């Protein structure tokens, strides 16, 4: 039979085994993510980093004598690690909950995600500084070496152990949650935390312990993974996005669903490796897209209609900081002077990223949708522009426009898929969809894998202006930026933009006024994708390269970070944010790998202390000053709303 379909049984079962191994890890990890999301309403992006901590924990225990020479510490092997590390990682989790995550429970979901993204960057960045990209080896414990010969294939003993033990852990977790007293507290608090508190149960402490438990599971998975995969700082980064996709596919509200979905997807991935190897990295994300079309709530999920009004935007209507005409002139003048003050290449980078962040702000700031996959539009446009310019010989301006067209089309497709869900789901879905493009670019022949498309010709603008002249190139980029800025300003201040803002402010109300809000969101998302593409295409021409980094999720995170630092939902915020981030990256370039740690800390600090961003905080200051002036002008008669005085209790 195997000969009939041209597949050897060794290959088939070998890949199924690998799929099963991956599957049990997916199960364990998505179980943790699902429990944490269920109880805390936090999309725990740092879960991957916590898994990595588990693997490193095991490695450290083994190398205790080398790390602390002279203390006479013993080298603790796998079995010790299996017991100690999950507790250690869980303890770190409890600490993180206490110090950071607790602060964002009452905030918009976006902040929980941003906070954990920042924490993940910090942790992974620190390990990256210490260990670089190279993986550490961790050998299989003595007692689990060797294997079983099944006749048609060789079954390594350690893998059998991993499958059996991981399934046991998953089942035990399921049992504890569904069948024990402790689990009944968890289930009850997930349903109605207020009621549980009214019974005298310390729910905040429970939340901390739940988080610690979910994180401990990730740590355990890390220990078990150490002998199979390489122990490296990056090991968690690649898995977390897959885990988010698994959670979207499985749907929330079912512990059992998370376990089954994880296993199933691992197996499907394994099978894909046999029958269509090129698709194995993307198959989970494609399944996610299909599930979203037919069962938006996920395979095992319950319908959730919880709507959280966004509370993120910081703009003040009528402020001079929102006067686009004024700032267009200021930026045109300032932009013309800039290349004589700093390197034109540096200035161009700033302009590209400022446009990118402004495009992103259109969906996050003005519609309130937490998109987390804008790298897909930025990067795909960069690739298309680079390819059409260097291979097809398109004129520069046409190459960039081709990139914009590609990004817009992709935006329409992704938007159509993602608009079905809101809040955190929207972020997870856009992130996963962007991963499809990333993996496609790794494999497709025309994108040249790790190398990317290099030596892209800058060419001649309209066939006459030589863009190899740095200043010519610069003013072309400045013109593009100003056009993009003007378009965004126009969109925001158009009848359409008014509807977008109304959706952000109160979507049910807009529906009740007769707006089909999903169509508005989709158009805004598509426009934003196109503008992100404009930034990406331009960037490919400026730097003469399109590379995987443009598509990597960190690029999406950059857009978010710039918008957040500058001020979400303000006209100038993303631009200020881009200036800050690009300058920071340049100034910190000497720090090497520490840059990512600094950037992660910036995320965390912004979420905790500067949620309104620089421009938003400035707006607050201005509005308070204005208020004081007004009160003074009224002869000291405070005309503050009556409610505020009632609130001041």
């Amino acid at each position: 039979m195997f000969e009939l379909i041209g597949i050897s049984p060794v290959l088939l079962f070998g890949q199924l085994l690998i799929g099963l191994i991956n599957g049990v890890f997916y199960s364990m990890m998505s179980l943790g993510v699902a429990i944490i999301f269920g109880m805390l309403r936090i999309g725990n992006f740092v879960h991957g980093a916590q898994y990595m901590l588990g693997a490193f924990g095991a490695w450290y225990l083994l190398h205790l004598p080398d790390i602390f020479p002279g203390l006479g510490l013993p080298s603790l092997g796998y079995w010790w690690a299996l017991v100690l590390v999950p507790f250690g990682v869980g303890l770190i989790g409890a600490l993180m909950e206490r110090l950071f995550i607790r602060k964002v429970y009452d905030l918009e979901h976006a902040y929980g995600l941003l906070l954990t993204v920042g924490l993940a960057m910090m942790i992974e960045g620190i390990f990256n500084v210490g260990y670089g990209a190279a993986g550490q080896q961790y050998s299989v414990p003595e007692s689990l070496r060797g294997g079983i010969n099944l006749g048609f294939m060789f079954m390594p003993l350690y893998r059998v152990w991993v499958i059996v033990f991981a399934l046991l852990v998953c089942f035990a977790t399921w049992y504890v949650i569904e069948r024990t007293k402790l689990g009944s507290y968890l289930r009850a608090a997930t349903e109605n935390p207020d009621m549980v508190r009214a019974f005298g149960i310390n729910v905040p402490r429970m939340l901390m312990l739940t988080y610690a438990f979910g994180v401990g599971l990730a740590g355990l998975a890390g220990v078990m993974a150490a002998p199979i995969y390489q122990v490296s700082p990056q090991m968690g980064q690649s898995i977390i996005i897959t885990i988010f996709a698994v959670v979207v596919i499985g749907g929330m509200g079912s512990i059992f669903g998370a376990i089954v979905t994880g296993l199933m997807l691992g197996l499907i991935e394994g099978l894909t490796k046999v029958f269509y190897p090129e698709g194995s990295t993307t198959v989970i994300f494609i399944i996610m897209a299909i599930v979203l079309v037919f069962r938006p709530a996920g395979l095992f999920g319950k319908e959730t209609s919880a709507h959280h009004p966004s509370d993120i935007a910081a703009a003040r209507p009528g402020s001079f900081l929102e006067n686009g005409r004024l700032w267009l002139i200021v930026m045109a003048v300032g932009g013309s002077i800039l290349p004589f003050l700093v390197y034109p290449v540096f200035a161009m980078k700033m302009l590209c990223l400022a446009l990118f962040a402004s495009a992103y702000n259109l969906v996050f700031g003005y519609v309130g949708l937490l998109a987390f996959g804008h790298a897909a539009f930025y990067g795909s446009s960069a690739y298309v522009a680079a390819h059409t310019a260097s291979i097809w010989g398109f004129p520069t301006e046409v190459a960039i426009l081709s990139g914009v067209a590609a990004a817009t089309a992709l935006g329409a497709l992704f938007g159509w898929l993602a608009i079905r869900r809101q809040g955190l789901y929207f972020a997870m879905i856009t992130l996963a969809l962007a991963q499809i493009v990333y993996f496609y670019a790794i494999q497709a022949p025309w994108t040249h894998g790790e190398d990317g498309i290099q030596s892209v010709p800058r060419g001649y603008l309209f066939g006459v202006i030589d863009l190899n002249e740095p200043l010519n190139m610069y003013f072309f980029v400045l013109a593009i930026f100003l056009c993009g800025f003007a378009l965004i300003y126009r969109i925001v201040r158009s009848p359409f933009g008014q509807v977008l803002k109304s959706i952000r402010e109160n979507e049910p109300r807009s529906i009740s006024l007769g707006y089909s809000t999903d169509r508005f969101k989709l158009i805004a998302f598509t426009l934003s994708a196109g503008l992100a593409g404009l930034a990406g295409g331009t960037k490919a021409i400026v730097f003469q390269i399109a590379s995987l980094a443009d598509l990597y999720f960190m690029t999406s995170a950059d857009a978010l970070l710039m918008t957040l630092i500058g001020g979400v939902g303000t006209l100038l915020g993303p631009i200020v944010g881009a200036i800050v981030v690009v300058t920071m990256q340049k100034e910190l370039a000497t720090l090497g790998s520490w840059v990512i740690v600094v950037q992660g800390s910036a995320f965390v600090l912004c979420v905790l202390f500067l949620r309104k961003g620089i421009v938003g905080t400035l707006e607050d200051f201005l509005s308070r000053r204005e208020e004081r002036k007004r009160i003074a002008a009224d002869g000291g008669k405070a005309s503050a709303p009556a409610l505020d005085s009632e609130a001041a209790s």
Partner: protein
Amino acid sequence: MNTAQSEDNIIVANALTKRFHGFAAVSDVDLSVRRHSIHALIGPNGAGKTTMFNLITKFLSPTEGRILFNGRDITTEPPARVARRGIVRSFQISAIYPRMSVADNVRMALQRPIGSSFHFWKSVKSLSVLDDRIDELLDAVGLLASRDQAAAGLPYGRKRALEFATTLALEPELMLLDEPTSGLGHEDVDRIADLIKQVSADRTILMVEHNLSVVAKLADAITVLARGKVLAEGSYSEISENPEVVEAYIGGSDD
């Protein structure tokens, strides 16, 4: 019911049932609202009044039953389309756009019918043709002086008035008001009640209201819901004499 009667009814709900996880919030409810009347839905907490609202405006889909608006079956239509047909609702908690100005709040309602809402290339100034109408509406609810202020800064009662002006701006054929006077002081209650009376002249109003003096003053017809079912229907005097209604409100003499 005969056809003549149903033509007089702007909305007819037949055997409407909505179940949540097996629990029937509304079960087998028939409701007909006469054109150009003020119809009140009252009943104890948990009777299913807000669920009825959500069903009629399609914010919820009924598990069973049918809803006809002007004789047309709207049971499967999405909420935004139902709104465009002329059924506009208010919400229990004041539904305003807090960070928009008072005038822009009303503008949101007025701009949809002029059809430029998808025009992202046009300036927002193209909407200034609506200014006169906005001022007229704000004047009607006594908010003209606050027109350029951010809506978030209004006192609660004024927010309800703004919401009312926004709802009214759409000139809805059928206006659904969910507890329009809840959380208001006496003065505001009277002002809103007068407004409701005033705007009811050539339209139909269906309201959920706890304040029975408001109901007594305004409603032409009352439907009493209890435990998701219709307990009684009629005028205020009929309802207040109905022993079942009295029992639902004050409690039965069970022994």
